[in-house]
């Protein structure tokens, strides 16, 4: 018992030491703060000068560029597996260095993370925002210090940032097009993502482009439309079960905003033997979802090739570090944000994956054939011979 106490005391002391070190890091941030604030007027006064200055740095070698990436949450499959390697690859090509932080789904943590990245010497920031509004003060402070910010995949409402994403409204449109093509009239269930996530509404907006007229004309009836906490598949399953109950199974199509929720919806349909008979949409190109597409229980998974996104962000980061203005970055367009800002944006095109083009994900090395074709009757789809 007594020895245990000592052990715990030891652990507590260690924990305090670690905490103290963290505190130190924060401290150096604040001491650096004033320096950079004095520097920032320079940047605003003489943009040409700064540009020259930065180009000078580049001339000295791309190796001097450090790109800081603030991830919101590595708990989601794709970021670590596909986005991160793609960014690193793009940076390696330009000889730039990569540093990162993971905020573990905490908006507060991410504020600290951004400061830490700056104090570690990041020249450009790529931020996957946990909360696009909460991150604003940190973003503003980075911009004030002359550090360009790239909003990665999630919008940050500051027109000085470069927004790189897939065309999310387009994703909604793509899934609705596939489903509408199969079911031009009838009862639709719409399972939306997290209410606090703007993407859930972007997607819904994109669906409206396709089915809006049919809904007004009365050809399509939306019998259920629900948000889903945390995009949770288990909750989506319950929602779909209740929807089927409420309509006595009289549902002709399900527009589901991502693959995780689609797994729940397909499980709910399987519960009443309707899996494979009702078209279901999804997005992300999850391996499990692609398997369902091959099996025929899910109709489409809109695939955003994360490697393209990472590559675009890495390349844009290097250009910005070399002093390019936002508007000069390759491939940008103007995009009207929901907050009324005109954002400089790179919009990438997603790909709807159906049974007909499963080869795309195989060729890209996104999934291997054994996983894609598990339980699939051989020869029933082209990709599974």
């Amino acid at each position, binding site marked *: *018992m007594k020895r*245990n106490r000592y*052990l*715990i005391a030891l652990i507590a002391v260690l924990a305090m030491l670690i905490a103290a070190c963290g505190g130190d890091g924060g401290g150096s941030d604040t001491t650096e703060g004033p320096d950079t604030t004095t520097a920032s007027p320079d940047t605003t006064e003489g943009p040409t000068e700064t540009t020259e200055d930065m180009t000078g740095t580049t001339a000295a070698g791309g190796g001097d560029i450090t790109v800081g990436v603030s991830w919101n949450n*590595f*708990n*989601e*499959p*794709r970021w*670590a*597996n596909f986005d991160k390697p793609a960014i690193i690859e793009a940076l390696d090509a330009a000889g730039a260095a990569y540093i990162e932080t993971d905020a573990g789904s905490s908006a507060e943590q991410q504020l600290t993370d951004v400061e830490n990245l700056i104090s570690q010497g990041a020249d450009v920031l790529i931020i996957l925002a946990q909360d696009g509004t909460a991150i604003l003060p940190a973003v503003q402070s980075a911009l004030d210090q002359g550090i360009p910010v790239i909003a990665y995949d999630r919008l940050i409402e500051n027109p000085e940032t470069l927004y790189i994403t897939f065309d999310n409204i387009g994703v909604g449109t793509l899934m609705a097009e596939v489903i509408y093509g199969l079911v031009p009239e009838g009862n639709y269930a719409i399972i939306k993502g997290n*209410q606090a996530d703007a993407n859930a509404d972007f997607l819904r907006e994109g669906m409206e482009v396709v089915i809006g007229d049919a809904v007004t004309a009365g050809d399509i009836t939306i019998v*259920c439309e*629900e*948000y*889903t*906490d*945390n*995009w*949770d*598949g*288990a909750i989506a*399953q*319950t*929602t779909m*079960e*209740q*929807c089927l*109950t*409420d309509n006595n*199974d009289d549902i002709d199509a399900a527009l589901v905003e991502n*693959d*995780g929720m689609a*797994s*729940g919806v*397909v*499980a709910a349909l*399987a*519960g*009443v*033997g*309707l899996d494979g*008979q009702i078209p279901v949409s999804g997005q992300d190109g*999850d*391996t*499990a*979802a692609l*398997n369902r597409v091959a099996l025929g229980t899910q109709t489409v998974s809109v695939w955003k090739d994360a490697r393209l996104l990472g590559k675009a962000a890495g390349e844009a980061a290097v250009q910005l570090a070399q002093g390019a203005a936002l508007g000069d970055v390759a491939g940008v367009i103007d995009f009207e944000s929901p907050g009324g800002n005109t954002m400089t944006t790179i919009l990438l095109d997603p790909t709807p994956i159906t049974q007909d083009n499963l080869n795309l994900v195989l060729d890209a090395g996104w999934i291997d054939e054994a996983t894609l074709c*598990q*339980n699939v009757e051989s020869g029933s789809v082209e990709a599974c011979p």
Partner: protein
Amino acid sequence: MSVTEETKADEARRTEGETEQAAGLLRGLWALIRRGVGSLELDTRLLGMIVGLLVIWVGFHFWSGGTFFTPRNLWNLTVQTSVVAIMATGMVLIIVSRNIDLSVGSMLGFIGMFMALLQAEWLPQWIGFDQWYTWIIVMAAGVVLGAILGFLQGAIIAYAAVPSFIVTLGGLLIWRGLAWVLASGRTIAPMDSTFQLLGGGARGSVGGTISWIIGIAACVGIVLLLVSRRRTRVRYEFRVRPMWADVALMVLGCAVVLGAVWFLNRYFMPEGLAMAYAEEHGLEWPEGGLEIPFGIANPVLIAIGTALVMTFIATRRRFGRYVFSIGGNPEAAALGGIKTKRTIVLTFMLMGILVAIASGVQIARLNSATSGLGTLQELYVIAAAVIGGTSLAGGIGTIFGAVLGALVMQSLQSGMVLVGIETALQDVVVGVVLILAVAVDVAYRRRQST
């Protein structure tokens, strides 16, 4: 005084007398009912909860335009409740012993991910896909893992005297993190085809006939239990219930069980499934179709079985008595010779095992394991136990109450989806109900103790 005034006064006096008489009669009747209900020796708190549940059901039934109180919806409800119910039975013992387990949601995610990987990726390398015994290996491995995790947490709580709140808060972060490490955040699917049956669904139910057999067995069980209790009381010369009360309880118990089976058995397979079933079993497909009941779903049977076993452990085993006496007064329990530390470790191991069972049901039902599996489940499990009358101060709580609590919460949630209430508002309602339920409970206990 005029004549009219006199008659008025007379009349007033007479009506007063009549009201008093009527009131007296009512009081007498009420006393009779109370004595009658009293001799049934039912727990009035549980009765209150059951009435509350019925109010929720009837309310949603009318609000949803008649879809709530249907066999199909209640069948769904039973399946949707089972995961939280299984875990809530263990949470009762944890809370009764004055501890808390905040890690069950994350642990569900970790064990679920482990079991999913085991059957979808690791085992197939050795034994191939879809063996009949895969599910047994997977469940056994999951249960062992659950017991180990529970042991780790319990040992630190009991022997290192770190508060359970802190240890399981740490566990909440650790297991969630490890779940991610296991699969790098991928979604693991599909599950083994036999294993899937644990989750219910089209084939994961026992069918109409077996449901009836189970119902009748339960009915016989109730009768035998009451008879044996009566005998024991007679043997030790305790006060026994009046004969009519025992008989009434038997009839009531059987009526509820068989009524539930009858009602759930009226949820028939949709045509497509029924056709496939008929073809498989070589049945003729008649003109009007076949009415094949799903019967009780496997996860529901697992939950009921768990609840029975846990009730037995909590009330009929020495371990259960120890847990309650530790919750009532830890010092007295320790001085009385109870190995309190060992008992605490055992409650956490039991919790881990129950989480493993719940994980199995959850991933089988979803037919996949996602990295966010079980997020926030700990709160629903704790809420179910607390709504079910488990006191956070320790020492008080019943397994049956916790299962009812889980059912109350799931009824609210499914009902609100059915009538189409916004997600954000659903959380508000569940939160309000949680506080209300406990407030009523506390007020009731205070009134009873004075």
